């Protein structure tokens, strides 16, 4: 009787442990007009607020506009800092709708590439130039502003508008946006999460927060069997052995690239990897 009552609870608990459930749930909740219009509140993911269904604001779009008005985006920065300090890049792995799109794109059979290591630093340049410097010094009416070429905006905002109006020539008129989207989607097929790794400005900000975020991943050198199964499952190509050297075998999320998808903890057959939220809760495979 007791186990019968616990069964649905266990089922829900097991569902909530699945990353895809969170990703699909977030996609729906971030774009569910039934929830109303809350675009004065920033969601810490790249989800275009110009989408006809978007519920929350995109921090990059808002910050770009405020900076172009020479208004310091205190509220946006505060929101992002709270999210980043508590959860780090977990939103990239579990919440971001464009991350979900890229996860599926990479399942398309094709030759697969591993991006060179230096490309991961590009996203900091994108954050600095196209979200801060260009809006401040030049303004928003040029293609160097991030939103002008944002693939999420094209996918979530422009595409539904074009489909609704039937004005397919809009893709030609906005050829730069269209081309940017096509290239990013193609790169998403051949290189796992290539946009997150190289261009996403939110990813860049949260990557900096990964250094002190509440959620963190821990590597235990003593129990690691060096099987490298964790490397095989990592969508962000985090080199755990390299992190071991850098962080002295203590904390993996000293890597700014880790999106805490926990693929590595699932692949790990020893207790070499575990996660924790500060020291309050934690998990991982137990021996």
């Amino acid at each position, binding site marked *: 009787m007791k186990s019968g009552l616990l069964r649905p609870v266990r089922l829900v608990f097991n569902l909530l442990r699945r990353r895809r459930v969170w990703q699909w749930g977030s996609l729906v909740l971030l774009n569910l007009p039934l929830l109303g219009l809350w675009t004065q509140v920033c969601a810490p993911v790249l989800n275009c607020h110009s989408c006809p269904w978007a519920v929350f*604001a995109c921090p990059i779009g808002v910050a770009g*506009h*405020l900076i172009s008005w020479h*208004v310091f985006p205190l*509220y946006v*920065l*505060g929101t992002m800092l709270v999210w980043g300090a508590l959860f780090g890049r977990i939103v990239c792995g579990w919440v971001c709708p464009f991350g979900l799109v890229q996860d599926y794109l990479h399942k398309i059979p094709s030759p697969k590439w591993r991006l060179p290591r230096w490309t991961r630093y590009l996203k900091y340049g994108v954050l600095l130039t196209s979200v801060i410097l260009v809006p401040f010094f030049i303004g928003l009416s040029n293609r160097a502003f991030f939103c002008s070429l944002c693939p999420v905006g094209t996918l979530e905002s422009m595409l539904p508008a074009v489909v609704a109006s039937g004005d397919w020539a809009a893709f030609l008129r906005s050829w730069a946006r269209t081309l940017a989207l096509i290239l990013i989607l193609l790169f998403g097929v051949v290189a796992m999460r290539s946009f997150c790794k190289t261009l996403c400005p939110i990813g860049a900000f949260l990557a900096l927060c990964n250094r*002190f975020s509440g959620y963190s991943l821990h590597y235990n050198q003593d129990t690691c069997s060096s099987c490298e199964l964790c490397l095989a499952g990592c969508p962000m190509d985090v080199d755990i052995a390299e992190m071991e050297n850098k962080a002295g075998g203590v*904390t993996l999320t000293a890597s700014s690239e880790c999106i805490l998808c926990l693929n590595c903890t699932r692949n790990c057959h020893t207790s070499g990897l575990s996660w924790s939220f500060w*020291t309050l809760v934690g998990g991982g495979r137990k021996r």
Partner: protein
Amino acid sequence: MRKRILLGCLMTLLGAGMIAASSTRAFPVYDEDLPEDEFAFYQEVSEIRVTWDGTFAGVLRSSSTGRLVTTYDRDAPPERPACPT
């Protein structure tokens, strides 16, 4: 680990402090873009409302005076704005 937790707590508090401070900020948003020596009406607009304006270019910055100028009727009930880009 202790350093990390301390830094994480400090950053969370800093972020929360920034959100709290933003709730007290307000910006003068003018009805029209007039020269600086001419009288122009303005409203004090909260940062939350300016954030909302940031989702659809509801404000423009005057190139001559540097003032924030509204692009829509602020007395009308808010509705879903069109894409600015």
